[in-house]
């Protein structure tokens, strides 16, 4: 059987036993990509020869020694492309440095291998906003993989990657993991350095693992975190061993069910799968409690002020001067800016830049940005209050299983509302995981459903413990 179907934990064991080499793993993953990527479109590019060279030099004594990890195409890895799935970076950008998270990965011995498709600049929840290609859900290739880290989730669930990194601004790790049927973890804001992650919304973005198992998520997270002087928001806090909760029971764990997350409009199959998961948690000894997060309804509106506003400022750097697309037909400097940007950015990115620029323009700041920051306080306070009573909060990850390709296209508001359960977690900066909780049959195909488990700030260990206990019992 191809090693590409293995987990990190399995590969580590076999590497240590001397049964396989890092070269074997990279070769098998490369073969799997060549066999299935034309169907899934998960990878935008991959350099097997470079990865084989790195594999031969890998230090197998390190915890992730010789394990190839797929990288979402918005993180800088020296010598590799970093397109953000945008035409503006596709032509002529080669990363001249490693992102902070990539440096940590390398210190753990892992090899960044392959660039994974995404919604352009991580703006979207279907990966259909990629300007560079379509990614399909491995369960049903007529459906989207979710997004924005859709390439990462499709590659992991489709067994053409061992594990991958994604980034999550409003659900972009957890939602595609749920829709493809794998595990996705968004760490606490500030756990992982954002240095070298192309910024979308700086106060919300966070890098995290997308893996086949909960244990792998913990193993990978162990080599992503830590203070980085080049990201002022990265936290100077102790980094625990995230595997310490793996295998421990959840007797007495207090699990909160926010009534605002169990609402009409959620697909009946999703509700049933999540209800069954809650019963399973209860049977494992967890104490289930009803809670309230009263300002949940403000989440999506708050997010769609803050994220586009921050994006419009962050994307101002694409000016066609230092890197990225430069229009060949511009006369003066202003025309150079306008043409380079208009030719380079796709429709959703333009939509969000326009929205953000409008909301930050003179006379509107108090009405939108300041107001949204105030609403953000209320949402955050809801969680603080809830976590005085419970240890974790559970909900569906997404209100619906994977849509058909094209179903949400050009209906931005409908697409934005898909993020209702994941957005508040980013606004409050909390850790959250999506773990598979069963399948539902739609049009004769079994589509995966994700269970979201949200934790207290910096308490990834408990989130992983609960997710692992559930995963093993399911």
């Amino acid at each position: 059987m191809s090693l590409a179907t293995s987990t990190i934990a399995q590969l580590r064991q076999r590497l240590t036993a001397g049964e396989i080499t890092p070269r074997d793993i990279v070769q098998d993953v490369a073969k799997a990509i060549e066999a299935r990527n034309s169907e899934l479109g998960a990878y935008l590019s991959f350099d097997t020869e470079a990865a084989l060279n790195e594999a031969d030099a890998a230090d197998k004594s390190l915890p992730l020694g010789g394990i190839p990890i797929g990288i979402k195409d918005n993180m800088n890895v020296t010598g590799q492309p970093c397109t953000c799935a945008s035409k503006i970076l596709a032509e002529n950008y080669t990363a001249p440095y490693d992102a902070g998270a990539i440096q940590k990965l390398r210190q753990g011995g892992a090899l960044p291998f392959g660039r994974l498709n995404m919604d352009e600049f991580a703006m979207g929840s279907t990966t259909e906003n990629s300007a560079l290609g379509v990614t399909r859900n491995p369960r049903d290739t007529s459906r989207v993989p979710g997004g924005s880290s859709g390439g990462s989730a499709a590659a992991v669930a489709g067994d053409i990657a061992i594990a991958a990194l994604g980034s999550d601004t409003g659900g972009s790790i957890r939602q595609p993991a749920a829709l493809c049927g794998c595990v996705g973890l968004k760490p606490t804001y500030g756990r992982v350095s954002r240095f070298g992650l192309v910024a979308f919304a700086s106060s919300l973005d966070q890098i995290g693992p997308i893996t086949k198992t909960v244990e792998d998520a913990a193993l990978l997270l162990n080599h992503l975190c830590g203070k980085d002087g080049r990201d002022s928001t990265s936290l100077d806090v102790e980094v625990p061993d995230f595997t310490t909760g793996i295998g421990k029971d959840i007797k007495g764990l207090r699990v909160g069910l926010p009534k605002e997350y169990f609402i009409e409009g959620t697909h009946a199959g999703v509700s049933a799968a999540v209800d069954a998961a809650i019963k399973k948690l209860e049977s494992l000894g967890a104490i289930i409690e009803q809670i309230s997060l009263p300002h949940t309804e403000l989440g999506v509106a708050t997010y769609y002020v803050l994220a586009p506003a921050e994006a419009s400022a962050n994307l101002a750097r694409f000016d066609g001067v230092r890197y990225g697309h430069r229009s060949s037909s511009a006369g003066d400097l202003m025309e150079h800016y306008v043409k380079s940007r208009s030719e380079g950015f796709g429709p959703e990115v333009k939509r969000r830049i326009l929205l953000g620029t409008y909301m930050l323009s003179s006379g509107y700041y108090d009405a939108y940005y300041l107001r949204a920051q105030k609403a953000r306080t209320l949402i955050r306070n809801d969680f603080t209050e809830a976590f005085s009573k419970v240890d974790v909060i559970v909900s569906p990850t997404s209100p619906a299983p994977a849509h058909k390709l094209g179903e949400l296209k050009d209906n931005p508001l409908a697409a934005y509302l898909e993020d209702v359960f994941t957005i508040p977690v980013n606004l409050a900066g909390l850790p959250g995981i999506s773990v598979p909780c069963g399948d539902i049959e739609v049009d004769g195909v079994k589509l995966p459903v994700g269970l979201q488990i949200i934790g207290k700030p910096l308490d990834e260990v408990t989130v992983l413990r609960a997710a692992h206990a559930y995963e093993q019992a399911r």
Partner: protein
Amino acid sequence: MPAADIDIQKVAKLSRLSLTTEEAAHYEKQLNGVLAYIDTLTAHDLGDVEPTAHAMPVFDVLRVDEERPGFTQEKCLSNAPKRVGDQFQIPKVIE
């Protein structure tokens, strides 16, 4: 909260983007829809609430002011779409 009514060409100019007439009409309609939804924030009394910029506390970070390795000039210029010698080239700005 102002009524959702976006002057799309003005905003496009501020954004350094150009829109065709069709694109402008299309975006204006879509963004007015999104803005109308965002107006749900007005239904809540947010007057005395402290704004949150970051979920976790953020502090100014200072480092010792001493020389350290950084990008070389060549590395900085390595992705320049147009360069002349050791400089980025831009369209003429002075007549």
